């Protein structure tokens, strides 16, 4: 059983569109949407929600104003600017609270509660391409990677249960906690980028991350014909950083039309990008032996 993640570094290069296309083209895969902050895979795969579970992670401080004596100890100790003063009392700014327990521990009146925090929900659903695990982080919730790890673990269990040979992961943008949590321990990373200076810059940071974790990386340039010479530059840099090149996809305005119709591009006629993606999937599956 293999786990493949699709990431990009830079946002907006086509991760979700391509993950959804791969989902259609693959057989016997479990899908995992690890972009829990701004999950979009469900917009193309229209899952029917079978199970919904709350996601509880960490705690948040809450000041009981009746017990608060207004001494201000909490404000003086908080390193996250999460305590504000009002007249004679104080309160916690929930979106800034790190859940560190310092104010709770040192309040002389023990006026601060520390309830568990519901941070979001996760779902186990069915789609036309196979079972899917996805999630939604609540507004302002911390995205440490814990929910991402939970989505992955659920996908791994589901794959074992249902004898699936592949887990396809739609990854988050960037290179921080959620990307690290989504990428560590995968068998291969598919990086989709665009032929722009920004795309190149962000790709190289992602490749640093994949070498750091020793995971083979395969790079594909999307909308390559916007700038063919930048495409070539990116491909050489990627090779120099130890990645393999796994095809290119031309710019295609049918992609947005397909999205509006709620379909993946490989289900929306035989457009130039659909043809390219089908070939890429074939090449990529043989490269990683699935």
């Amino acid at each position, binding site marked *: 059983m293999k786990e493949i993640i699709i990431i990009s570094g830079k946002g907006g290069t086509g991760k979700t569109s391509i993950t959804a296309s791969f989902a259609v083209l693959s057989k016997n895969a479990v899908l995992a949407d690890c972009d829990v902050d701004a999950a979009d895979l469900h917009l193309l795969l229209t899952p029917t929600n079978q199970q919904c579970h709350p996601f509880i992670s960490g705690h948040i401080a809450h000041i009981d104003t009746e017990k608060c004596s207004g001494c201000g100890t909490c404000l003086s100790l908080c390193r*996250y600017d999460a305590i504000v003063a009002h007249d004679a009392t104080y309160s916690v700014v929930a979106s800034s609270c790190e*859940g560190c*327990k310092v104010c709770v521990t040192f309040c002389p009146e023990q006026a601060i509660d520390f309830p568990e925090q519901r941070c979001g929900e996760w779902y186990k659903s069915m789609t036309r391409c196979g079972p899917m695990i996805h999630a939604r982080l609540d*507004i302002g919730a911390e995205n440490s990677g814990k929910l991402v790890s939970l989505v992955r673990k659920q996908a791994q269990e589901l794959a074992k249960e249902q004898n699936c040979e592949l887990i396809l992961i739609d990854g988050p943008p960037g290179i*921080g906690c959620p990307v690290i949590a989504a990428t560590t321990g995968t068998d291969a990373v598919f990086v989709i980028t665009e032929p*722009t200076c920004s795309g190149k810059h962000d790709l190289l940071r992602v490749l640093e991350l994949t070498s750091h974790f020793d995971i083979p990386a395969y790079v594909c340039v999307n909308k390559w014909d916007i700038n063919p010479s930048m495409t070539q530059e990116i491909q050489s840099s990627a090779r120099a950083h130890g990645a393999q090149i796994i095809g290119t996809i031309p710019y295609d305005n049918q992609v947005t039309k397909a999205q509006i119709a709620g379909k993946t591009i490989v289900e929306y006629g035989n457009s130039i990008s659909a043809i390219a993606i089908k070939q890429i999937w074939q090449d990529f599956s043989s490269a990683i032996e699935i």
Partner: protein
Amino acid sequence: MKLAIASGKGGTGKTTLAVALAQASTSAVQLLDCDVEEPNGHIFIKPEFTSHEDVTIAIPALDETLCTNCGKCGEICQFSAIVTIVNQTMIFSDMCHSCGGCILVCPENALHEQAKGIGCIDSALGCGTNHNIDFIKGTLDVGQAMSPPVIRAVKRKISPATLAILDCPPGTSCPMITAVTGSDFVILVTEPTPFGLHDLKLAVETMRSMDLPFGVVVNRAGCGDDRVNDYCSAEQIPLLLQIPDDRRVANAYSRGEGLLEAMPELAPQLRAMVQDISSKVVISAEGKQ
């Protein structure tokens, strides 16, 4: 005025707009690149950096001669960054959130803080053809998990007297929230597609939960459908500007050239938008007094 440029979805054009706003400005402006995981503003501003500083966070260091392994540090730590196992106390600094709790709670004063580097800030003054842009770029080291401390360090460079434009990270979780907190106004950049609309709604919910005034700019207008515009009307969200979908812009962007190089005619519209936002912010501040 602190003007944050954010979005739900990645790749909608935040950096494109932030850079264009700075370049369109005729007075002194600061452009702060708060997308510290993947900062891109420098590609378009092409700054000559004159200052570089490391960003560090405080992590605990243990004096084993004073430690009695009482375990109080491990008890307060919510992040398993310090833990006492039988007769030794171990520190896992990459888990540490720098809250200072373990140091405060140690009865033997056996813990003190030391600095750990997680990123850096580079600054360049007087950039752009009018030499009016001070550019501040934050970068998180690859392999470091947490960006908010670097974002906070970048924001400490905000000069209260000028227009500060903050190029924020995508999404709606802690990095974006850290970047937009305390702004006078937030511009949410989106694209007229189903993904764009879905993620815009998340960003709008975030703005409302933080009680921050905001408006929407639609980039690549015409490439999709009208649902974003309809949503903004229905929700009475100000639609500040629509930037047309134009291959010239994509080509210029791919070469590291800004929006105004492809479409210089946008400059007066951008200035008018900032002026409009600025008067809204002043009225709102007066209203609160």
